[in-house]
C-alpha cells in the first residue's frame, strides 16, 4: 500500500513538469485556429450554422469532460445545465431585452452556482448512485420548465422565441457568420481557461482526486470543496454552451432539453476522447453529424445505424477519436525512428 501511495505522489508531481507545450502542439493549435477562422468564408450560411452548433456542443462536451475526465465523476444530467444556460439567455433577452453577450456570463454564473449546489449532496454519491442522481436531474428538467408557477418566465410549454443578433459595428457579414465567430472566440477563451486550470495546481489536485482520493486527502487537498467546485465549473461550461445554443437556434422549449441531450453529450465525450481538451471538438462534430450520417444511410431505421456506428467506434477507437489520432501519431514516429 505504501509503495503504491508513493508512486502516486511521484506521478502527481511528475504531472507538474509535463505541462509545457511542444513545438508540434503549438503548430497544431495554430493550424486549428486558422482552419476555424477560415471555415465560414468557404461554406454556406447553413454549414456555418452547423459548425456553430458543433462549437456549442464541443463546449458542452468540454464541460462534461472536466467533470468526468479530470475528476472521475460522470453525469447524465448535463442537459439540465445546458437548459439552465439556455433559459437564462432566453429570459434575459426576451423579458429584459438585455444584449446577448451579457447573457453568457450570467448563464455561466447561474450554472456555476447550480452545479456547485448540486455537487454538494452528490459528493456522497459515487458511481452508479451519482449516475442515478444526475439522471434524475435530467428527467426532472422538462417538467420543471413547464411548471405552471414558473411559466411567466419560462413561457411554460410554449417556450421562448428569441431574435438572432446582427453583426455589430456595421460589419458586412451574415448573422450566421457573426454568431460563428462570436462562438469561436468564446470557445477559445474557455479552452484556454480549461487548459490553464487543468495543467496548474488545480488540475493536479483534480487528477489526484480522480486517481486516488485517499492519497489526495492525505496530501491536504480539500476533496469535498474541489469536487463540488468541479461540478460547478463543469456546469458553467455547459451553461455557456446552452446560452449560445439558444441564441443560435433562436428558441428554447422544454422538448429541447430531454434526457437524450444528456446522452448525446456523454456520447460526444466518450467518442471524442475522455479527458482530452481537443477531443471535445470531435465530440461536438459527433453530436451534430453522426445522426445525419445515420439518417442518410437508412431513413427506415436511423437509430439502428446510429447505434451501430457507436458500437463500431468503440471497437476501433476505444480511446476515442483523439486517442486514436495520438496513437496513430505515436506509431508513425516510432516507425520513423526505427528507420
Amino acid at each position, binding site marked *: 500500500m505504501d509503495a503504491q501511495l508513493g508512486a502516486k505522489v511521484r506521478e502527481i508531481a511528475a504531472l507538474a513538469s509535463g505541462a509545457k507545450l511542444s513545438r508540434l502542439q503549438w503548430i497544431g493549435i495554430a493550424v486549428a485556429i486558422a482552419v476555424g477562422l477560415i471555415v465560414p468564408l468557404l461554406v454556406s450560411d447553413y454549414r456555418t450554422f452547423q459548425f456553430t452548433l458543433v462549437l456549442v456542443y464541443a463546449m458542452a462536451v468540454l464541460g462534461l469532460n472536466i467533470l468526468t475526465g479530470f475528476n472521475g465523476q460522470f453525469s447524465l444530467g448535463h442537459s439540465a445545465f445546458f437548459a439552465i444556460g439556455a433559459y437564462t439567455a432566453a429570459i434575459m433577452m426576451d423579458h429584459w431585452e438585455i444584449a446577448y453577450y451579457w447573457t453568457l456570463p450570467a448563464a455561466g454564473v447561474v450554472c456555476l452556482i447550480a452545479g456547485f449546489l448540486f455537487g454538494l*449532496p452528490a459528493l456522497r454519491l459515487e458511481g452508479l448512485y451519482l449516475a*442515478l442522481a444526475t439522471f434524475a436531474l435530467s428527467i426532472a428538467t422538462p417538467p420543471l420548465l413547464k411548471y405552471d408557477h414558473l411559466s411567466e418566465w419560462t413561457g411554460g410549454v410554449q417556450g421562448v422565441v428569441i431574435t438572432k443578433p446582427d453583426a455589430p459595428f456595421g460589419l458586412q457579414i451574415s448573422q450566421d457568420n457573426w454568431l460563428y465567430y462570436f462562438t469561436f472566440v468564446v470557445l477559445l477563451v474557455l479552452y484556454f481557461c480549461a487548459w490553464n486550470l487543468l495543467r496548474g495546481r488545480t488540475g493536479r489536485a483534480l487528477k489526484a482526486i480522480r486517481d486516488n482520493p485517499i492519497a489526495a486527502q492525505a496530501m491536504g487537498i480539500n476533496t469535498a470543496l474541489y469536487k463540488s467546485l468541479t461540478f460547478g465549473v463543469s456546469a458553467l461550461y455547459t451553461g455557456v454552451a446552452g446560452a449560445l445554443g439558444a441564441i443560435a437556434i433562436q428558441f428554447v422549449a422544454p422538448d429541447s432539453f430531454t434526457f437524450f441531450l444528456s446522452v448525446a453529450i456523454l456520447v460526444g465525450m466518450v467518442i471524442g476522447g475522455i479527458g482530452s481538451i481537443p477531443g471535445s471538438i470531435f465530440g461536438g462534430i459527433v453530436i451534430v453529424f453522426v445522426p445525419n450520417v445515420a439518417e442518410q444511410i437508412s431513413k427506415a431505421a*436511423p437509430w439502428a445505424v446510429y447505434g451501430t456506428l*457507436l458500437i463500431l467506434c468503440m471497437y476501433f477507437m476505444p480511446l476515442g477519436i483523439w486517442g486514436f489520432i495520438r496513437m496513430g501519431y505515436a506509431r508513425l514516429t516510432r516507425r520513423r525512428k526505427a528507420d
Partner: protein
Amino acid sequence: MEFFLQQLFSGLAFGGVYACMALAVVMIYQATDHLNFAQGEMAMFSTYIAYTLISHGVPYWWTFLLAMAISFVGGVMIERIIVRPVEGTSVLNEVIVFIGLLTIFNSLAGWIWEYTIKPFPSPFPKDPLFGNTFVGTHDLGVIGVTLVVLFGVFLFFRYTPIGLAMRAAAQDPASARLVGIRVGWMLALGWGLAAAIGAVAGILVAPIVFLEPNMMGSILLYGFAGALLGGITNPAGAVFGGFAVGVLETLIGAYVSFIGSELKLTVALVLIIAVLVFRPSGLFGRVVVKRV
C-alpha cells in the same frame, strides 16, 4: 378510504412492474457488475417476439417459455458477439455500447413491427377478482409472477454452485479465474438470464402499457431507481424498491396537491436520492467494509 386503496393498489400494480425490471437489473449487476441501459429495449424486443409467436397461434404459456428461451440465447449471443470486444476497456466505453444497443433495438422494433400500439393478451381473467374495483386481476398476477421469479432468482443465486460462481465472477474476475470459473461464460450466462427475466417483465408489462417500441423506456428508469433504492446487490431489496417507487410516486401525486401530477416523478426521484445520500448502499444493500 376507497380512494386511498385505489391509489395504493394502482401504485402496487405498477410497483410490481418496476420490481420485475429492477430484478432483471440486479440480475445483470450481480452477474456482470454493470447496469445495462439496453435492458429495457431488450425486454421490449423479447415481448415483440412473444407477440409474433402468439399471433402465429402458439398457446400463451408455451409462448411465455419460448420467449424466455429465445431471449436467453439472444442475451448470451449479444454478450459473446457484441459486448465482448469492449469488456474491460472502460466503464464508459461499455455504457456507449449499451446506448448503441438501446437505439438499435428500438429502431429495429419500430421498423419490423411499426410504432402503433398493440394489445397484448393477459393470461389472467379479464374481470377483477370478486368484483372489486381496486385492483385488476392482471395487476395481481404481475405481483404474483414477480414474487415467483424473485424466489427463483433467490434460490438460483443462493443455492446453486453456478449462481455462486456468477456472483464471484462479477465481483472479482481475477480471483474467480483462480478457482477455475470460466468468467467469460459467466458474463454471457448473466446476460442470458437477465434477458430472460427481462422478457418476463416485458410480457407482464405489455398488457398494461400496451406493446410499442418505447414501452420500456420509463419503466426501466423506474426499475433502476427501485433497484438502487433497495440495494443493487440484493434481489429482494430491489423488488421492495420497485414496489416502493410505484407506491411513492402514486401517493405523492395523489395527496400532495401543489406537486400534483406535474412534478410527482421529480419529487419521487429527489426523495430516492435523499435516501441514498444517507444510506449509500441502498435500504437493504450490504455495506461492504473494505480493509486496506
